[in-house]
């Protein structure tokens, strides 16, 4: 027996169960540490997995071959290239030949050696994933590779194109624009409504039945599952008011109602943090209530209100379920130009791609996720920065 244990036994106040109790405390502590480690490592694993899956999508493979631009090949674009390449080259690239000639009329009647987009199966083979390419075509690619005529280039298409049924031709642009339009509608509706409600509740309302009703309602609004807002949008905006289906207008309005409670709650907190002495000073100078709120309380609470609105915006940006209900998962290859056109948003585009059978869409989904998450994280970081920067201790 060690010296320490000896002295403990000779101590009349020493409780023999103490070691056991300390052990229990240790086990408990290690449980809490394990849970936090699990949470954080899940996050890291998840982000790593998305980057690993998504990075390949930023590159796309091309082959250097001769393309024949003539009246005949514009009429039948398949004939623009040698027969043996037809199985490996992207159909979408060939389909765009007339467009290319129109943009560059001097191409007509010439033969050019250019980089031509390969199709997604060959692309997947070159990136070392699962592929379905015939042996004959595979040998062709291998010999071309030996001559340095097959290369991976930066994937511009991903940023300049909308959705497409041909994987190598599909991009994220129309979804980004759709998201911007939708969120514009959301903010234009939700921000003033939310701030005004908060100002009313915090500064003007007396504590009566009516304000209590509003309070309870805001709490409920915050807890309603988002998919039910989709049912509301479908029943009210589309069926009742006849607004265009899958448009940013309906999507934005639906998301606005969802974002409203977040903005109200954070704006109220910001208004509450403005000390009463500011208001009293205003009244002392003979200002009316509206003037005090408008010129003194609101400007002081503004950073807090902004923080809450940005967080609300970033939540709306990631929301998908209500938008699916109102039809924003339609196949939208063109970039929308107004809020009345059919559009898709980033998360809905990810959902559509995730359901596609081709392997090439997996990397596009992951790449889109990387984009979306980096936007969300920077929005949230900006919100935290605002809060820290303008935090005032009164």
């Amino acid at each position, binding site marked *: 027996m060690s010296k320490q244990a000896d002295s403990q036994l000779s101590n009349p106040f020493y409780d023999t169960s103490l070691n056991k109790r300390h052990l229990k405390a240790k086990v408990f502590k290690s449980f809490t540490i394990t849970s936090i480690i699990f*949470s954080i490592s899940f996050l890291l694993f998840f982000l790593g997995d998305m980057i690993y899956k998504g990075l390949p999508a930023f590159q796309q493979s091309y082959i250097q071959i001769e393309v024949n631009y003539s009246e005949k090949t514009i009429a039948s674009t398949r004939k623009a290239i040698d027969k043996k390449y037809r199985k490996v080259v992207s159909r979408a690239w060939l389909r765009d030949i007339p467009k290319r000639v129109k943009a560059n009329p001097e191409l007509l009647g010439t033969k050019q050696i250019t980089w031509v987009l390969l199709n997604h199966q060959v692309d997947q083979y070159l990136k070392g994933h699962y592929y379905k390419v015939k042996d004959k075509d595979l040998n062709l690619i291998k010999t071309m590779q030996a001559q340095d005529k097959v290369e991976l280039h930066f994937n511009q298409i991903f940023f300049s194109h909308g959705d497409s049924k041909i994987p190598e031709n599909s991009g994220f642009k129309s979804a980004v624009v759709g998201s911007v339009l939708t969120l514009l509608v959301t903010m234009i509706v939700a921000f003033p*409504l939310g701030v005004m409600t908060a100002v009313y509740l915090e500064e003007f309302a007396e504590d009566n039945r009516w304000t209590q009703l509003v309070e309870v*309602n805001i709490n409920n609004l915050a*807890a309603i*599952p988002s998919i039910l807002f989709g*049912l509301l949008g479908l*029943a009210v905006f589309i069926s009742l008011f006849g607004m265009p289906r899958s448009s940013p207008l309906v999507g934005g309005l639906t998301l606005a*109602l969802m974002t409203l409670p977040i903005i109200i709650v954070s704006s109220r907190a910001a208004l509450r943090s403005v000390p009463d002495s500011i208001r009293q000073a205003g009244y002392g100078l003979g200002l009316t209530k509206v003037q005090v709120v408008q010129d003194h309380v609101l400007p002081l609470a503004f950073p807090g209100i902004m923080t809450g609105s940005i967080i609300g915006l970033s939540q709306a940006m990631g929301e998908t379920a209500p938008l699916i209900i109102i039809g924003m998962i339609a196949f939208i290859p063109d970039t929308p130009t107004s809020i009345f056109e059919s559009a898709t948003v980033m998360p809905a585009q990810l959902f559509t791609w995730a359901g596609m059978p081709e392997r090439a869409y997996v990397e596009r989904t992951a790449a889109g996720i990387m984009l979306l998450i980096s936007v969300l994280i920077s929005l949230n970081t900006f919100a935290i920065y605002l809060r820290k920067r303008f935090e005032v201790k009164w």
Partner: protein
Amino acid sequence: MKPFELKNRHHGLKEQLIHFCLISAATVSILTTFGVLFSILFEAIEFFQMRSFWYFITGTEWSPGVENSKFGAVPIFAGTFMITFIAMAVAVPIGLGSAIFLSEYASDFLRDKLKPLLEILAGIPTVVYGFFAAITVAPAIVNFFASFGVHASFNSALASGAVMGIMIIPVISSLSDDVIRAVPDSQRKASLALGMTQGETITSIVIPSALPGIISASILGLSKALGETMIVVMAAGLRPNLSWNPLEDMTTVTVRIVDALVGDNEFNSPDTLSAFALGLVLFVVTLILNIISISLIHKFKEKYKVNTL
């Protein structure tokens, strides 16, 4: 004095106008809640005029899209229950453990670094979790169980439930952390002074004191799980399946709502309207859970006189 009077009258009018605007803004929030309720309620009533309410609540066969379609929602409720149960089994211990570590053991420095990281988990869109569950987690589960010779479905309840649990961790940990920190320090000091270990202080003094708040946080997580859509739409099955095996595919209320509304059915067919009946159930259940959760937090606030929650 005259100009002042004039100005004041002008002000009075303007103020009334502003006041009116503010009240109308507040009215919108009320209208929204009732809008959600009524838009669902009316369509649901239309559905129950076509199909029996009792069969909806107690029937075990759900077969839309065929002739003599049947709408018995019990297997859907069962699937929802199973996936929610798995999610809570993951989220409650881990979320609570994380909250206890952050509020009781971690130094301020560590806490400042770890809490925002946890909150990133809450900021990840659910469609992303759904993709992750379907592409990474579900195949991993299938492979894992196949190595023991057990068959698991690619749309297993386990995959979507586990990922949903991870999504809910920050919901539970963030609120629990706030509540645990709101427990007055005098209680901890008293307990330590009586010779309790730190572990005992936490398990027998701090947590019981914070219990209303912790339960409230868990209920909030529960209602999140019930209403969560994208993860289950992407990773759980479509087939109503009355089973106790979490490795089989199951469906949930939200999955069936999406499925009923995404197809080409006519709006007034029972197939489409069944979505609103399910939506009504979801609305009522989450509302009840929400009321319980709010009243628990309220009790906690009154007991310890905290205003920051």
